[in-house]
């Protein structure tokens, strides 16, 4: 469970008109939640806040009952974040970064090798991020997310830049984590691969989070609604305002 309690955030607090989130209250239970919306609406920022990458200006964020900023380790222990931009430091090899993840999550070092093999990067462990293509960097991030089987997955455009086989493998992994009862928060413009499994949809408009929970059971109606939300529409008849 991830909870936003009165969360406000702006990249430039001196410019109130550029506020991304304003006093958001939100509770996301286990299951797959799709975050959709047009470019720049705040999808990635929402995930970065939930992942503890950005600190909120006001309010609190809890992961599994632990405050993200006062109980840093406990809240992040079961959390994996795959950002849209694979920001791996160029001063370490892929293996070193995954070893760090193993150490921080309390996993044995061979978990890193297994995760790399699962995404098809086992031959590139000794390479720096400088020597990897964009798709390979994303695979490295996905390998890091697999370590320790975290119960809360925050995935920002997880299929972007991946080849066909890697997309299939990533979708299978997400489905397996979903089936295991994990919380999966996916921000995506291409909603089709996730539509069937999604329990709810979330979008950000003018600093507010708008939740559709549950999504329509009829596949055609669900797809139509998700496409409208992804296009920036906010059908008033389907929204339950979380606050």
């Amino acid at each position, binding site marked *: 469970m991830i909870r936003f309690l009165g969360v406000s955030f702006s990249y430039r607090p001196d410019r109130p008109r550029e506020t991304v989130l304003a006093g958001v209250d939100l509770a996301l239970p286990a299951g797959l939640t799709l975050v959709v919306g047009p470019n720049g609406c705040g999808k990635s920022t929402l995930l970065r806040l939930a992942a503890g990458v950005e600190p909120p200006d006001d309010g609190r964020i809890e992961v599994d009952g632990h405050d993200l900023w006062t109980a*840093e380790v406990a809240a992040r222990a079961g959390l994996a974040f795959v950002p849209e931009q694979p920001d791996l430091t160029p*001063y370490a090899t892929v293996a070193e970064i995954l070893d760090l993840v193993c150490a921080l999550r309390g996993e044995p070092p061979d978990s890193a090798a297994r995760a790399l093999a699962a995404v098809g990067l086992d031959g590139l462990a000794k390479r720096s991020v400088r020597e990897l293509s964009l798709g390979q960097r994303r695979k490295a991030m996905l390998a890091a997310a697999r370590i320790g089987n975290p119960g809360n997955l925050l995935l920002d455009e997880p299929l972007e830049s991946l080849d066909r086989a890697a997309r299939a493998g990533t979708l299978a992994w997400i489905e397996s984590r979903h089936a295991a009862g994990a919380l999966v928060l996916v921000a995506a413009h291409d909603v089709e691969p996730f539509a069937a499994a999604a329990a709810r949809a979330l979008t950000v408009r003018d600093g507010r989070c708008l939740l559709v929970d549950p999504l329509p059971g009829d596949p055609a109606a669900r797809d139509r609604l998700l496409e409208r939300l992804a296009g920036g529409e906010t059908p008033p008849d389907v929204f339950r305002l979380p606050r």
Partner: protein
Amino acid sequence: MPPALAAGLLAGLGSWPALAASVPLLAVADLAAGPPRSPRSPRPAHSRGAVRRWLAAWPPPAAERPPAPHRLQVPPAAAASSGRHAPVLLPARIARRALGWRPVRAYAVALLPWLAALLFAANNRLVPLHATRAAVLGGGGSCVLLLASLAGTLAARRPAWPWVRSLPWPARRRVLDDALLLGASCLPLLALTGLAAPAAVPPLAAILPWLAVRAAGAIRRPASPASPAAGRIRPSGEILMEGALLAGLAALLPWSALLPLAAVPVAVRAAAARERRLKVGAWMERHHLAAGDPGSWSGG
């Protein structure tokens, strides 16, 4: 006097090349000046300057008596490295790779205050207390210069790594990792100071943890939202101002070094809070070098 004056003027220009050029001028001035004159003891005929005497006496004979405690001396060369390295953690390795060979220049510059203190003590007849004060000031200045240089380089070449903040790696630990690396980098300077004036080591060692933690915090200085065009973040000024003040105070009142030592936990908390508050998404290309920034779209 003219070379010394020129050295002072050059050093006051504020640029590193001018500061470096002032060093040989200072040595020339010392050679020309010779030892200090005393009305009760006329200048010895064999004395032609402290630097020349050092050069003539180097290396010292093995049976030579240890130097008087109030005189700074050129320390013996460090023992050759055994070639073995202690296991280091990834944060330290990342920082070392980000720094590259820049610490060599940083150490060269950082040695200047220590050298100045050495010359000052060699060219003046100082009571032990004053010699210790000069060593504390020189050694402290060296540590502060080194910390400012390394922290500035780290801030530019190894800015915040956004994704790693989502891992169970607390801000306090990340700050302490940096502080440990920065503090350890100052140990050779501390050893040099100790070889010359052992009494200078305790006050310096007492202020070093505070300085290292403050430098780790200065790396995390956020970009000012009010003036984003202010330029690249430079933590050096923050460290230099605070460090110079502390080193001066420790030189005058050695017991005062206990205050920053006792306040280290407060500094750690402040630096960790700064690390948590950092808006990593607000870091822009113009604030730092793109090289080494995992979030950069032109670096890496």
